[in-house]
């Protein structure tokens, strides 16, 4: 089916997120505005205005009340989803790279970049305590001096955050004590993205080392590997099929030739159990920066370096397709 093209950003897309029901799609980009769209027809519902730098990350809580964004303007902001009103602004010393609501929607986390002499911090706020927001004082802050956090997602039941680092490590940071519960290093290069499965039991990583890996959220056991020949920027797990989708491509600065044929990367579909590629979707001009499955598994979206977001609905054959086994 013809994809729906969302044209709402002037710069490359940095992250896209569906809400839990999947009726809304949030997109953020290197421009300053966060957009929200109806996923069914691609109509723009509204914007969240206020940031003054590139927006790196976005998340929405489970009952679609609040939206959280983190930006290179050294702030993490909380918005009312429906009205677009800014509810809170948490100032930081460096850019906010990742953010997220926990399972209950009461606790938020965000991580900051190692930048301008500041090191990387992982901060936890409890939204039930207005004092924390007012004083901009997280109840827990974890310094990560070794290698900065480049991607992070909450684990199941809000017990810990699973963070991917610049050096390829994955750590579980407890939301209570901040200590590292588990640590694995299966990737050799930066982890660009971590996303969890719909039931939060598994996470998939996307790494610059040209591969994606599936891990158990709790034990961080490595389960599967999906290999390509390009750096992977984002990966997502299908909620209904044993499939994963990956998006990536050569970094713009690393593509030396003027040819458009080099460095491109189509969205690639792999079978989660067989680790085999079975399909590709073309479309973006340049690398894909983020991918996400609709929670009903019947469509997926991708955001590209070209500044567009595309919503793809699967053809019926997609659901019938089986690899011989």
């Amino acid at each position, binding site marked *: 089916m013809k994809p729906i093209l969302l044209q709402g950003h002037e710069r490359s897309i940095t992250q896209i997120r569906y809400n839990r029901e999947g009726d809304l799609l949030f997109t953020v980009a290197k421009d300053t505005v966060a957009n929200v769209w109806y996923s069914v027809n691609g109509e723009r519902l509204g914007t969240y205005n206020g940031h003054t730098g590139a927006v790196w990350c976005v998340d929405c809580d*489970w009952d679609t009340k609040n939206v959280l964004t983190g930006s290179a303007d050294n702030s993490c902001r909380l918005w009312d989803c429906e009205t677009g009103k800014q509810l809170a602004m948490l100032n930081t010393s460096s850019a906010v790279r990742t953010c997220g609501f926990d399972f209950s929607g009461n606790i938020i986390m965000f991580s900051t970049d190692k930048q301008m002499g500041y090191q990387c911090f992982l901060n936890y706020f409890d939204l039930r305590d207005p004092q924390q927001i007012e004083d901009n004082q997280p109840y827990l802050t974890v310094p990560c001096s070794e290698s900065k956090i480049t991607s992070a997602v909450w684990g*199941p*039941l809000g017990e810990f955050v699973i963070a991917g680092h610049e050096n390829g490590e994955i750590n579980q940071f407890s939301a209570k004590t901040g200590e590292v519960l588990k640590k694995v290093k299966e990737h050799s290069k930066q982890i660009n993205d971590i996303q969890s499965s719909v039931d939060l039991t598994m996470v998939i990583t996307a790494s610059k080392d040209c591969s994606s890996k599936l891990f158990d959220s709790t034990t961080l056991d490595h389960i599967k590997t999906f290999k390509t020949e390009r750096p992977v920027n984002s990966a997502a797990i299908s909620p209904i099929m044993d499939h994963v989708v990956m998006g990536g491509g050569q970094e713009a600065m690393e593509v030396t030739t003027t040819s458009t044929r080099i*460095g491109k990367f189509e969205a690639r579909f792999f079978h989660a159990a067989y680790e085999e590629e079975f399909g590709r979707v073309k479309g973006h001009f340049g690398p894909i920066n983020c991918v996400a499955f609709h929670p009903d598994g019947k469509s997926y979206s991708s955001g590209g370096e070209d500044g567009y977001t595309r919503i793809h609905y699967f053809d019926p054959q997609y659901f019938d397709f089986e690899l011989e086994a």
Partner: protein
Amino acid sequence: MHDTDDMPPDVDYDEDEPSFSDPEDFVDDIEDEELLGDLLREKPQEADGIDSVIVVDNVPQVGPERLEKLKNVIHKIFSKFGKITNEFYPEGPDGSTKGYIFLEYGAPSQALEAVKNADGYKLDKQHTFRVNVFTDFDKYMNISDEWETPEKQPFKDFGNMRHWMEDSDCRDQYSVIYESGERTAIFNNDPKEPIVAEERARWTETYVRWSPKGTYLATFHQRGIALWGGEKFKQIQRFSHQGVSLIDFSPCERYVVTFSPLMDTKEDPQAIIIWDILTGQKKRGFHCESSAHWPIFKWSHDGKFFARMTQDTLSIYETPSMGLLDKKSLKISSIKDFSWSPGDNILAFWVPEDKDIPARVTLMQLPSRQEIRVRNLFNVVDCKLHWQRQGDYLCVKVDRTPKGTLGVVTNFEIFRMREKQVPVDVVEMKGDPESKNAESIIAFAWEPNGNKFAVLHGESPRINASFYHVKSNGKIELIKMFDKQQANSIFWSPQGQFMVLAGLRSMNGALAFVDTSDCTMMNIAEHYMASDVEWDPTGRYLVTSVSWWSHKVDNAYWLWTFQGRLLQKNNKDRFCQLLWRPRPPTLLSQEAIKTIKKDLKKYSKIFEQKDRLSQSKASKELVDKRRSMMEEYRQYREAVLHQYQDQKAARLELRGGVDTDELDSNTDDWEEETIEFFINEEIIPLGE
């Protein structure tokens, strides 16, 4: 005098000087050999200054009254080489000198210089000096009079050196360097997927080379070359040559020539070393002025001779003595290039025009040095020598500037080597009629075992590929010309007939597979940004590759059939180089090959059956593998989902009792919403 005043006050040297002697219980676990083995090998000895002393014989015997005069003469001659620090004129009982003298210089190098230059110096008719270094006497005295038989070296068995030829499926091997040189692997080529035969980290420091018959794999290291072979790729030989950067095997695989830009010294030539592969011994070293054109030494096809060209000379050496053939080089003034026939001991070389003497291409038989053919050429700018692989033909590509025309014209002079007096025919490359300039030649290649050749000519994007056929009567016929080709290189199959025209690097990796028996394009394909093309030694497969050395992304090698059907895409991280392992020449006689070709149908049936079997086996293996992976994954998911169910209560609690496990698990809360889809727009003018 300030200096002395500024001297520091006397240091008390009695102050605790650390003891350098070993403690009593010290056990020296490092042997001298390990610590300074490289020095010990040179057997250094304490210098006592006697190596600066020379002995001069045949000096006139004079009485005391003329001694002063003699000393003056001697001084005059010998102080040219350095300052004489000491001298001794032994005298007989009658007071006259004994006819030999000793002179000492300030340095051994001056003594050596004196020996080199003054030995044989004619003082007058009766007296010719004999000059020797004093230490030489010692050296030659110490040589034992009895000849000791060298100890017999035990035979080292490396197993079957041609093990790979015994592969039941006749698979060829190739070496692959990847991870920017960190890893090297040997694969058995299989149409399904490559099978690893050996893989090692840091096997070589730069690249690898196969020997011409495929017996050895040479790896490069800072300290020299190592050769590997046999079933398990054990180390077979080592050649220590510091900083080695280039090597070349003799075609017979008996010798290897190594080149290092370091190490060369005046007395001991070490820039180029020729080694005996079987014994590992250094056979001879050579100086090297410039390494611009490797190989510097070119081998004759059987490894009997090797030759090198220097200014106005062509030096031919013979094996195994490594000495100059007939003890002298050939004087060929202003020789530009030479090349051995790959089939016979015949050398071709050319010299450019010199005033009124025309340029010449000469064919010379060896070791007789008989000139079997000389061809004079006029207005020559440049010549290139191209031998057909069996030595049946020689093509000399001649660039000329004929009088009265502008620009360069190219001719191909074809020498038919197998016929009496070596007749020569000329193919003229006619230029593009539209442009004044003659066409430029991009590439030329002989069919390896036939009588055809291919030429790429023209200017991009109007590049033509022409195929010529040399008939037995000497006529050269253009069989076919393809115009507007995207190609800059020609790769013939080692078996002939088939070839690939490739547009490498700047031409984006365009590939055209041609069958020259009827000159059809079998397939046109592309390996984007391909930098290399390699035929397997049997001519069944072809590999195209994008090397990390020339291009930093999409490094991979692709395997094709000779017809141009793509079989595999092998992506390897920072892939650098692929080299097929050459095969030794066949042991079958011509008749035996003929019979096999006649009975091909009989064999092909067996092979087809084998292919079908392996295919069905492969798909079964794949299905089995998938099944087991699926089973494993399913078990994991079951266990996890079980745990997930157990946590349901915790989840409900966290979300205030709302069940969100399924998308539609709380439909009661749902609100209905109407959404409009913009399908299309149509303006319909309303009629009256």
